């Protein structure tokens, strides 16, 4: 109650300060009158009584001020007065204010934009009710490297047999073609096991969730659709539940619609879900043992991921021996299970880059703030007279500091507001060029959190930028400053400004060296040989959907005919297809058993099922034996081609040609026939140009255990392949017009986008580096220029005593370059530490790469020398007579 009282009282005074003042004056007058009356009553004469009373009361104004300042509202009034004065000050110097505001807007805008991009990825909790309990589950062979789980593992580790998990689920991507009244459309979707939505903790908004009776081999064809698909394709039909959809060649019944708020972190573009439908009897030669699933789980309350992993590993060791044949078909049983929080898992790939970028943008903000501090200090030097006057008139030190802080906060607030506008644009640019594996880009926007961040940063910057100049200004001795002849204080503030310039240069060096290291890494990466020739190659993924392809022979015939049709397109030099494309994100690994290796552990390697002409089209060189060719048909003995480093590792001293192997589902099964190695080809980068993991085996698609439903076509053109795209698509559709063609891209674009994350970091670092360089250069210029102004008399004196122009030039240049050398020295120390953050993004060079360091130092010195040159030249050309009369 008393707080409310105080608040109301203060507000009343704020709204009607005049009547409050009158009230107080009346009361004091009355006090005086009463005191006089009392003195008269005690026997004094009227004049003496008045004087005695006045002495008692003291200065009326002082009492008035004391009372007035005792309430909280007086603080607001002072702030308002400070702000009014600050506004007048900044309007009086529009150039100075604008420069400060723009510089800060740049810093705050960049920081806010980067923060809003980074926050949803790294820090914002996932949009699930038990977000911290949702984890991803992986198999592992060596305890570190994560391997996609098999259905067999999922089945063996079912949640109801564990203490750690409430639910677990496996899923894989699914792209059904939706056939209806509109033209056929390729949907993005997922095949999921029954507890998928329960593991995420989100239930359908309409209809029902999947049940375990849905997720069985040849189970009911049911689907749940997203709110977006419901609105987009079915006009929000209220009777959607129960409606039938034709997906590929099958009728599915819609059983549910997800809420519009449902965000699918694991596959953001998925719009439709259907049961996985794998065989729970786990046939040893089936897809149930392929490492192509993703697995998630929801931990029970209080269970840590590592405890869950320990429990699953123990269980795995118990049941894996019972299914050794199944595991052998895909490279052997895993050694253990890894459990990661989902948030870490989705952000881990991009985390190093994002943290480095976040660090870099804070350095940019720091430089911008230092620059503005420098400007304010310089401005403070010009306003010495004003400060002295104010302080002589009785402004206390705190009052002066408060006034100057109000000015810097006002500038920061204007800069922050403009910065938010910059950030809004910056965010769009960031999203547009962000790497495809950056999760949750849909959530990147200026929201309340970003706004709060910008406000906090703005306030902080406003205080930091103003505090140092305010301390300097308020420390002035009013008398000497009024005379304007003392140089003591000038020296003080020049020293501070020089220290700030040194800081700017060292931060610029840190940013530029980081940008340089990334630049050289990218350069190194793109000069890595991918193992094939990507020039003039177009790739597109062709599907074969529908029951007419249930027979593998029909499927193989379709792909063969489509390939022939593509070869017939004018301008096509050669064409082929493969089950997985290098550097495209495909990662298809199967087991391989070598007859000559006695160990029980099979090897795992990338599996390529290709058309015979694949090597020639991709120009993958032959090392030994022969390429796959037209002889290797379904009826011929299975011919296998190995990658070079794989063959060399397995057959150190023997000839690999003619050696016997069992592949994929046959690996480790003594009852299956052997296949024969017929050739060895050059290594191809599959996952990334930066990763040396080139174990691979190739067979023709007709000799592989099953017919893959999707094939990536690679087409080498005689000219620009992009112009051939329509004809190539038509050629494929001339064989079967219902087959969707997706992922159309040129091979060079695929190679480039495989390094999207490094490029993203590089672009931002380059931008930040050059902004920093520019700001540092203006900082050096401003300080030297100010120094020349203040030393005009001294320079004139030197010139009058016979110092040559050359001498004066080198005096000023030397002064500037000393700062640069200091800055560079400190910056080098800084960057050797800071570059540790970049280590994971570097490739082919160390973080102490001398070429980068020397290049950046040369660049910095050149730019700094240019910034020093202009003030130095002005000093050189000073006329001694004019200079001596200065001031």
């Amino acid at each position, binding site marked *: *109650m*008393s707080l409310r*009282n*105080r608040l109301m*009282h*203060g507000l009343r005074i704020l709204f009607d300060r005049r009547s409050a003042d009158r*009230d*107080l004056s*009346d*009361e*004091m007058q*009355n*006090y005086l*009158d*009463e*005191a006089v*009356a*009392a003195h008269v009553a005690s026997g004094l004469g009227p004049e003496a009584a008045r004087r005695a009373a006045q002495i*008692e*009361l*003291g200065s009326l104004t*002082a*009492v008035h001020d*004391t*009372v007035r300042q*005792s*309430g909280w509202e007086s603080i607001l009034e002072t702030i308002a007065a400070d702000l009014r004065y600050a506004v007048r000050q900044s309007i009086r110097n529009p150039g100075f204010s604008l420069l400060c505001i723009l510089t800060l807007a740049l810093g705050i805008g960049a920081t806010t934009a980067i923060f809003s991009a980074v926050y949803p990825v790294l820090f914002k909790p996932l949009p699930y009710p038990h977000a911290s309990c949702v984890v991803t589950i992986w198999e592992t062979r060596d305890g570190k490297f994560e391997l996609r789980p098999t259905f067999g593992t999922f089945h063996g580790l079912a949640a109801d047999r564990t203490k750690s998990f409430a639910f677990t689920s496996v899923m894989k991507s699914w792209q059904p073609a939706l056939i209806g009244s509109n033209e056929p459309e390729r949907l993005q979707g997922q095949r999921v096991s029954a507890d998928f939505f329960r593991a995420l903790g989100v239930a359908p908004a309409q209809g029902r969730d999947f049940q375990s009776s849905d997720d069985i081999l040849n189970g009911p064809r049911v689907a749940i659709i997203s709110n977006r698909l419901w609105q987009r394709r079915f006009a929000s039909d209220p009777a959607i539940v129960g409606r039938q959809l034709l997906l590929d060649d099958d009728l599915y019944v819609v059983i549910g619609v997800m809420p519009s708020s449902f965000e699918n972190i694991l596959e953001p573009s998925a719009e439709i879900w259907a049961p996985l439908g794998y065989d729970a009897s786990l046939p040893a030669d089936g897809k149930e043992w392929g490492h192509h699933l993703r697995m998630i789980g929801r931990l029970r309350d209080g269970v840590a991921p590592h405890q869950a992993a320990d429990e699953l590993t123990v269980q795995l060791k118990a049941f894996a021996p019972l299914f050794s044949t199944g595991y052998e078909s895909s490279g052997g049983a895993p050694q253990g299970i890894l459990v990661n929080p989902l948030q870490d898992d989705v952000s881990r790939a991009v985390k190093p880059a994002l943290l480095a970028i976040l660090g870099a943008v804070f350095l940019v903000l720091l430089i911008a703030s230092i620059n503005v501090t420098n400007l304010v200090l310089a401005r403070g030097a010009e306003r010495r007279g004003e400060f002295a006057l104010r302080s002589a008139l009785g402004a206390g030190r705190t009052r002066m500091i408060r006034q100057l802080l109000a000015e810097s906060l006002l500038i920061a607030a204007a800069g922050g507001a403009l910065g938010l506008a910059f950030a809004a644009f910056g965010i769009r640019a960031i999203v547009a060029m962000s790497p495809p594996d950056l999760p949750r880009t849909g959530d990147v926007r200026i929201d309340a959190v970003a706004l709060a961040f910008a406000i906090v940063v703005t306030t902080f910057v406003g205080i930091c930028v103003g505090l140092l100049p305010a301390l300097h200004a308020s420390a002035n001795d009013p008398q000497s400053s009024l005379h304007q002849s003392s140089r003591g204080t000038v020296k003080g503030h020049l020293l501070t400004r020089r220290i700030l310039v040194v800081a700017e240069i060292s931060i610029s060096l840190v940013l530029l060296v980081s940008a340089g290291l990334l630049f050289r890494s990218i350069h190194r990466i793109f000069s890595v040989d991918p193992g094939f020739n990507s020039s003039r190659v177009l790739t597109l993924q062709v599907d074969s959907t529908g029951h007419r392809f249930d027979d593998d022979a029909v499927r193989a015939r379709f792909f063969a005919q489509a390939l022939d049709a593509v070869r017939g397109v004018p301008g096509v030099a050669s064409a082929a297809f493969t089950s997985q494309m290098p550097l495209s994100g495909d990662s298809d690994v199967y087991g391989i058993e070598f007859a000559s290796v006695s160990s029980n552990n099979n090897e795992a390697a990338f599996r390529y099922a290709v058309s015979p002409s694949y090597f020639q089209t991709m120009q993958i060189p032959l090392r030994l034996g022969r390429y796959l060719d037209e002889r290797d048909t379904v009826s011929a003995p299975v011919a296998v081609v190995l990658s070079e480093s794989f063959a060399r590792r397995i057959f150190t001293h023997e000839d690999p040609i003619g050696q016997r192997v069992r592949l994929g589902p046959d690996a480790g099964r003594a009852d299956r026939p052997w296949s024969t190695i017929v050739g060895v080809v050059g290594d191809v980068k599959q996952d990334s140009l930066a990763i040396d993991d080139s174990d691979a085996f190739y067979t023709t698609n007709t000799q592989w255990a099953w017919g893959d439903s999707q094939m990536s076509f690679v087409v080498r053109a005689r000219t620009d392949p992009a112009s051939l795209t329509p004809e190539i698509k038509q050629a494929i559709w001339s064989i079967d017009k219902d087959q969707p063609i997706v992922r159309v891209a040129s091979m060079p674009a695929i190679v480039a986008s495989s390094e999207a994350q490094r490029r993203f970091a590089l672009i931002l670092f380059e931008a930040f580096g050059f902004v920093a360089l520019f700001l540092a250069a203006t900082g050096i210029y401003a300080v030297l220029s100010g120094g020349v102004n203040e030393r005009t008399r001294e320079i004139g004196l030197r010139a009058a005593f016979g110092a040559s122009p050359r001498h004066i030039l080198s005096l000023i240049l030397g002064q500037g370059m000393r700062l640069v050398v200091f800055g560079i020295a400190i910056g080098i120390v800084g960057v050797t530490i800071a570059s540790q953050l970049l280590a994971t993004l570097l490739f082919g060079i160390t973080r102490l790469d001398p070429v980068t360091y020397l290049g950046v130092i040369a660049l910095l010195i050149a730019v700094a020398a240019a910034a020093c040159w202009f003030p130095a030249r002005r000093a050189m050309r000073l006329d001694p007579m004019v200079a001596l009369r200065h001031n």
Partner: protein
Amino acid sequence: MQDPTTDVIQGTLDLLILKTLSLQPMHGFGIARRVEQITRNVFKVNPGSLLVALQRLERSGFITSEWRQSENSRRAKFYSLTHAGKRQLELEAADWTRRSSAVARLLKVEA
């Protein structure tokens, strides 16, 4: 203590004002005069501090004020104690008694 009149000890002014007002509503000068009389000029009330204290107590809701005629027919701002003020006076008085008797005991022991 050479000077027989002392400035009011920090923090006791509120107590003195509340106690004075518990007798009857009074204007500022009246309060100052009454404090000086009752304490036999041991305490001298500074008018500035008094007015600040009155404003603070009024804001806290312990006293209220209104303008009315004083005994010598001048318009004066009269302060009076509220219910909350009465409670506050009891609290502060009890607190003061506890402290002063503690100090008194201590002094006796030392002597």
